[in-house]
């Protein structure tokens, strides 16, 4: 991870905007922002995160690479698409935010303690392993994210919901052992690997 960051720094000295345009999904839209602030005003999470999309875009143009990539903002996006709908310049803001998050994660610069980042990783590992999401493992993984004691407490608090799901036949306790998986697990994994390779090449991640 560190090496990839070094490589990016060397390639785009002082031009973070170009780095974003070339390497971040939908990043070529960032230059089209006209700083009206409608996205910042539309975001339901507005008061709760460090930088609004408007500020993120301004910071990209100002070359504030570390601050942008280590910001928690992109991780807080709930994909409600309010900003995308309202942006007068029709920027795909939600996609850009996710693109930035992914890029920061790949460079190893994403905020380590951010819970949504942790959840995203859990989800990705969970579903790419077998090709299907194992909900029981995902929920338990989430409960025990912050340690054993916290996990037990959370599971205890949710016990009635869990029992309810069990009674209604919506939760299979044997999933904990193996769980269902897709027919061609190896095929899925090969496909994902190939996709990774293509993206690395296209965005110039490889050395």
């Amino acid at each position, binding site marked *: 991870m560190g090496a990839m960051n070094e490589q990016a720094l060397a390639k785009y000295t002082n031009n973070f905007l170009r780095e974003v345009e070339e390497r971040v999904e939908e990043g070529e839209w960032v*230059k089209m922002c006209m700083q009206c602030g409608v996205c910042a005003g539309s975001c339901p999470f507005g008061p709760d995160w460090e930088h609004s999309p408007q500020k993120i875009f301004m910071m990209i*143009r100002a070359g504030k690479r570390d601050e942008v990539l280590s910001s928690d903002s992109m991780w807080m996006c709930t994909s409600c698409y309010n900003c995308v709908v309202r942006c007068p*310049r029709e920027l795909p803001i939600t996609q850009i935010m996710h693109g930035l998050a992914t890029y920061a994660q790949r460079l190893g610069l994403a905020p380590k303690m951010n819970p949504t980042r942790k959840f995203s990783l859990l989800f990705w590992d969970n579903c790419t392993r077998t090709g299907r999401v194992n909900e029981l493992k995902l929920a338990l993984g989430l409960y025990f994210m912050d340690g054993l004691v916290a996990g037990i407490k959370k599971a205890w608090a949710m016990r009635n919901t869990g029992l309810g799901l069990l009674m209604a036949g919506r939760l299979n306790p044997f999933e904990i052992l193996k769980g269902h998986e897709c027919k061609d697990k190896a095929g899925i994994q090969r496909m994902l690997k190939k996709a990774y390779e293509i993206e690395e090449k296209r965005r110039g991640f490889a050395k």
Partner: protein
Amino acid sequence: MADLKYAAYVCSGCGIGERIDAAQTAKIAEKEGKIALVRQHPFLCSSDGVALIRKDIGEGATHVAIAACSRRAKTEAFHFPSVALARANLREGVIWARPDTDEARETTQEMADDYVRMACAELKKMKLPAGNPEVGRSTRILVVGGGISGLTAAVEARKTGYEVVLVEKQAQLGGWAAKLWKRVPDREPHAAPVDTGVRELIDAVTKDAGVKVYTNATLAQTSGAPGRFNATIAIESGASVNEEIGAIVQATGFSLYDMNRLPELGAGKSPNVVDQAGLEKLAREAEASGQPICRPSDGGEVKSVVFVQCAGQRDESGKHLPYCSGYCCNTSIKQAMYFKDANPAVDTVVVYTDLRVPGNGEDFYRSAQHKGVVFTKGKVASVEPDGNACTVNFRDLILDEDARIEGADLVVLATGQVANAGVDIENADATDANGAKPISILNLNYRQGKDLPKLSHGFADSHFICFPYETRRTGIYAAGPVRRPMDIAQAMEDATGAVLKAIQAAENSQLGRSAHPRSGDLSFPMVRLDGCTQCKRCTVECPFGAIDEDEKTYPVFNESRCRRCGTCMGACPVRVISFENYSVDTVGAQIKAVDIPDEFSEKPRILVLACENDAYPALDMAAMQGNHYSAFVRVIPVRCLGSVNTIWITDALNGGYDGVMMMGCKHGDDYQCHFVKGSALATERMSKVDETLKTMSLETERVATYEVAITDLKRLPQLIEDYAKVIDKIGMSPMKGFA
């Protein structure tokens, strides 16, 4: 006064007949108004009714009073140009302004009776206007200034078939536009700078025999009036030529705000800091040499350019221009494209506080963003040149922190436009925003001064809110950046509009008619000089500089320069100025014609003098919308509140009126007065009326002045109701019964 035949017509249509006793009003016209021929009609504006009036006119009626709807309604049906016409407003002014109730019936009827008395009395004092005998002779258009505005004005005048005389101070035509490499695009897809087109305009003007071009020439003197201006043009050889002119378009443009007044932005400290004109020069030099634009200090390659918006503009400190020039954001976008289109690797940053891109600038802005021009919202604090590079320090307004751009090869300052509007006629010592002492452009021989009056920030006169091309000098129209900051597209539109107004003024003068806003009016001010006391009030107060003075300081009226507002008539202390159909007598007679009930009747009478441009139509429209008001008011429309002579006020109060309301337009910096200064002058005059009231032992509340807008449909009836309450409180006038 032979063959004067008076006729009056009372209409009972539109509900008038149901609400008032039309037969009674007709009888009043006959007995009290002393009108020989009085007719009633159930539908007067019908072809039948109009034919009836026409027949009477054919049989010799010369003065006609129509008691029907407002004078603003049915003007086409009741268009009888061969007779003097008075209108009694029974519909909007009476029945629609009053509730339809039994208790209101009596006072509503009294209102109608009075309006008929007033119309009859007015008619007796009216004459049919004959038109200004001193008609114009020329319809040629003089265009002052040969920049893009002047050239456009000339071309548009030629398209309409009028001859043009064009005077340009410089040796070449084209002005600023000729100094540009390219211009902001004026048509789809608004994506890249385009050719200025100024070459074609110059060709069109110089190859046209109908345009007489004087370059290296100035106006030594301008005299006369619309239709007969005499322009003395000082030409290159030192000689002068005279041209007879119908109307004038002043398109003298702007000077760039001097960037040397901005040392904090690096101006003068490094050749790499230029203004927008400086960059155009570099771009033209680059094109001539076939090289990219290079750094002036050492001819080095330009890798990074910073554009500083609002340089010395929108300044709140009072040191620089306080206004936005409106064109500079688009210009900086265009200039950034000069670099990006040639080499996308050049960094171009525009530092702006608010990007203002009028016209189709939004598309142009978007195109620049696509091309990679970076836009940073910030306010530049300083530019520090160091060798071949500059550092730009600014406050980032989004991130709210101090920031800097280092290593800029070129810094372009977007300074604004300073009008070339000639001398300040109100302050001979005034300097312009660049600290220069202006010289006169028009050299008018008017007593009111050599140039157009200035409106604000040194820009030439313009009736900004309603009639942008109109100045306070009739027949002289300001176009382009001389009247407000603007870009090429706006200037071309402006010039087209102004030249059409100029043509109208020239044509109206040929027919002895007034120019805007009483366009086509045949009446004109007449003065009885044997009663004049040479007090000069008319010459001083005329908002349009229409009145000169002769060697004995008697007023000399230039009727073609007059707009017929009647401000001179209102100013005249000896009342020797009048119009044939509007005079101290026509209004005075109406005031005296109203029947004043005695002190114990509990029926006060309030005189309303309402500006016919805004207040009177607002009253009409208020009534149309069913906003009722007191039956105690008697409304008389006046051409402008400036035409109100104080004798009307004293006559009214002496005659037993309980109060006088005067309704004029908004005055001050953002005035709405059609005649610019009329309502302000009236307010000034009425501020002195308190003394008169005291000598009459009357309360000062008995005269009140209001600023009214045409949209005050709810407020106006309320003002009347409130004033009626004031009168109720201070009591009836003690002056009743003496007149």
